[in-house]
């Protein structure tokens, strides 16, 4: 373990976070609120950041191990500094709540412990949503894009922070890849903001909702979620959410005019197919069970929630606790599937599901013809055996962590729907679940222990297990 380079990266990330305080600070200034919480937070970030970056480590080597540890620790550090505005502004007086809210923000979960978000200062609302935006594509990827590093092993950070079974660069340089990703991300976010403004949404709402949709976060700024927005606005948000759940390589291929490559991406096709089938089934269920009388409205709400859940955003236009069982079941399944790899969404990821489905098909062939030699193909290329092995183990350990978390949260004595979906909604970085933590509820009534466990789940889910789990392995910290 080269601890020097790890500390240096954490330091740079904190400096960036301090700089980002400009966003909620400016917002507070405009609305005539106190800017002190943000100034103080920035100061603290700068002090720690400068202390950590004062000495540039001599060997700039960032191998796999350092990449994972730097990523894991940076996110932990960000959780404990990003919570300061909540404490300083008096929005929350408990450290657990503030940490939960911050991690929920950075990991783009969107589960909230605030019972009435409308009472919060505008600066805090802006900070919550902005955390979604920066956490969506990743603060370390952001760092790679803007801070020039020498040494050339930055790819190990990008690998650790970006979601998906196999992360590859789109151009030779990690820094250029990070820049391109953020450019696409930024342009799409601005696009969504403009559309929402055109549809007459107030600027503040348009910004917060767009940041949340872009990062697939889901903090809302109204107590009723997105229910009070007009139907065109809701449709725009739906399309926005679904667009940000697509693998960003897709947009890069569009950008360099390789339409063939873009539209033949199996993951994107699978993702769209799952969305369409889910919307269809839920719409039919809603109309037949008599929940909705108008078919277009049923389709709109079904689409909104399917998009919201599969991309792991977590916005809501209605209380899904009132929906029939089949619809709820489909939504719970979608929670686990999640968005595409290389998007801002969470969950298991469509590509992992596809890989495992194909691996299952291969096992069937092997059962029939024991000597058969068969490779699993994805996008016309054979997926490496180590990717398959990693994916299999990933999904196993995913459910182990899930099960342990459910057991701990069940100590709170809530009904099983609440317990189960509270973990599913946080671990998959979605936000609301069903029952007490449903679309119109929140997480405030959970015990501190559950909040800590769910906070950890959010981090583990966002960073895809390994960067966080490695922090608990003794060998990680050995020099030899």
């Amino acid at each position, binding site marked *: 373990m080269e601890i020097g380079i790890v500390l240096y990266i954490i330091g740079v990330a904190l400096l960036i976070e301090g700089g980002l305080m400009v966003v909620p600070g400016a917002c507070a200034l405009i609305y005539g609120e106190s800017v002190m919480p943000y100034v103080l937070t920035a100061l603290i970030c700068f002090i720690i950041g400068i202390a950590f970056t004062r000495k540039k480590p001599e060997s700039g080597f960032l*191998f796999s191990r350092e990449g994972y540890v730097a990523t894991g620790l940076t996110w932990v550090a960000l959780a404990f500094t990003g919570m300061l505005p909540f404490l300083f502004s008096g929005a929350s007086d408990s450290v657990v709540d503030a940490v939960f809210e911050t991690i929920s923000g950075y990991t783009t979960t969107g589960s909230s412990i605030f019972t009435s978000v409308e009472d919060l200062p505008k600066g805090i609302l802006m900070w919550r949503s902005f955390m979604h935006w920066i956490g969506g594509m990743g603060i370390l990827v952001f760092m790679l894009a803007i801070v020039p590093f020498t040494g*050339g092993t930055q790819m*190990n950070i990008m690998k650790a922070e970006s979601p998906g079974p196999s992360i590859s660069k789109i151009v*030779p340089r990690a820094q250029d890849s990070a820049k391109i990703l953020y450019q696409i991300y930024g342009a799409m976010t601005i696009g969504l903001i403009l559309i929402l403004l055109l549809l007459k949404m107030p600027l503040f709402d348009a910004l917060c909702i767009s940041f949340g949709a872009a990062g697939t976060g889901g903090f809302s700024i109204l107590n009723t979620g997105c229910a009070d927005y007009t139907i065109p606005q809701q449709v725009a948000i739906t399309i926005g959410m679904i667009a940000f759940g697509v693998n960003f390589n897709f947009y890069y291929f569009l950008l360099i005019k390789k339409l063939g490559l873009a539209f033949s991406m199996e993951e994107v096709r699978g993702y769209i197919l799952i969305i369409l089938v889910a919307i269809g089934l839920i719409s039919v269920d809603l109309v037949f069970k008599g929940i909705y009388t108008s078919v277009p409205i049923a389709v709109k709400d079904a689409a909104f929630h399917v998009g919201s859940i599969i991309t792991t955003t977590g916005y809501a236009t209605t209380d899904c606790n009132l929906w029939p069982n089949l619809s709820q079941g489909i939504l719970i399944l979608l929670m686990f599937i999640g968005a595409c790899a290389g998007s801002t969404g969470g969950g298991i990821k469509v590509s992992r599901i596809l890989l495992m489905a194909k691996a299952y098909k291969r096992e069937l062939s092997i059962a029939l013809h024991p000597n058969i030699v068969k490779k699993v193909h994805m996008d016309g290329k054979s997926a490496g055996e180590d990717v398959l092995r990693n994916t299999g183990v990933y999904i196993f350990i995913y459910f182990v962590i899930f099960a342990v978390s459910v057991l701990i949260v069940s100590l709170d004595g809530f009904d099983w729907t609440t317990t189960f979906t509270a973990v599913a909604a946080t671990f998959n970085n979605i936000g609301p679940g069903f029952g007490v933590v449903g679309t119109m509820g929140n997480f405030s009534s959970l015990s501190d222990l559950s909040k800590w466990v769910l906070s950890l789940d959010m981090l583990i889910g966002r960073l895809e297990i390994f960067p966080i789990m490695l922090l608990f392995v003794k060998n990680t910290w050995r020099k030899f």
Partner: protein
Amino acid sequence: MNAVIVGCGKVGTELARTLVNDGHDVSVIDSSEKALAAAAEAIDILPVQGNGADINTLRDAGLDKADIFIAVSPSDELNLLACLIVKSTSDKVKTIARVRNPLYLKETLFLRKKLGISRIINPELAAAREIFKLLQYPALSRIDMFADGRVAIFTLELEAHHSLTGRSLQDIGSETGYSILVCAVERDGEVIIPSGNFVLREGDEISVVIAMSELKNFLKSLGARSTPANSCLITGGGTISYYLTEMLLRNKKQVRVIELDQKRCEALSETFPEAEIIHGDGTDKSFLLKQGLKYVDAFIPLTGIDEENIISATFAKNVSNAKAITKISRTDLNDVMDELHIDSAVFPKLICADNIAQYVRAQSRGVGGHVETLYRYLDNRVEILELIAKEDPALTEIPLSQLGNRIKSNLILACIIREGQFIIPSGKDVIRRGDSVVVVTTHKGISSLHEILI
């Protein structure tokens, strides 16, 4: 510039590392996912798995935007084919192929003119040239050229009788009358970028910049051997020996080659009637002594086994004054060679990568590249670069004495070459636009003259 490399072996990896450090965007194609993963873990490249002669793989690697294409896979045929395919898709892209088979090499002119391959690199031939160069100056453990061969930088271990031993650097200029610059010293395993009052000692390994025209006389005044090696004993009759023997014979040197294989001996003897081809075991110590190891000017072990070469060279150092030049195939032994007291070691794979990198640098001059030449010295701890000065208000036309404290520590400007003139810079001198400046530094990855400033 954008470069696509086919082949992720030692040469390909080393080349990718150099090009990325120089600021180019590099994709590497190889059929082995493992090799690519290992390279991509350490170097900022785009790894592409596939066959280097497959057009789709090439496109995946970004051929459309490539300025330079380098094929260094183990197969000559694949390298040539890949270059042909690339050339057929675009005329702009420069293609470089590694070709080792001497049969193809005879057709170099044809390959270049008719097939449009910009450059053919043969690692064995390049290694032979390197050895030949060292044989011209047996006192030196290494010598490299800058500015089209007008300026040399060489490394030499100081012995007690050398005239520089015991002198401080500021005295050297006035006392020897030669304009030279000692730019790096390795002493007790430490690399020092010395200042004026630094006193040289016996056993120091010094790197010196000098005008090529003065080199011979300087070595004479130093008390080191200044004449080329006239007799050479080579063990191993492989491809490098073949090329080296040819060069030596052309220069009327006495060559004796020891080769284990009878057939190979006969073939060599047929090609080189003037050389003495000995059939025998070149790793056998007493056999070597019988072949005159004690009295030969230079001993060059070129067998296929690194360890044998190193052992014979060490043995030669103990029993004779011969200059020993060892060939080493592995690239990672570079760092430990110092401990072994062998005069010089030649790494064909690194030479090959370096040669290609120099070519790429020359190509990129037109499109914003600054690095003209780059050599790594003293186990890669020192980089010696020739940089082209561009207009830069913070740097050009300012006397160096004023720049003084804004220049990084552990960095010196060894010389300025302006219109063919060689200047060892003093405080009054300025850097002008278009100058080429030789910079010696322990900082890694400097890619433009601006980066010498703090």
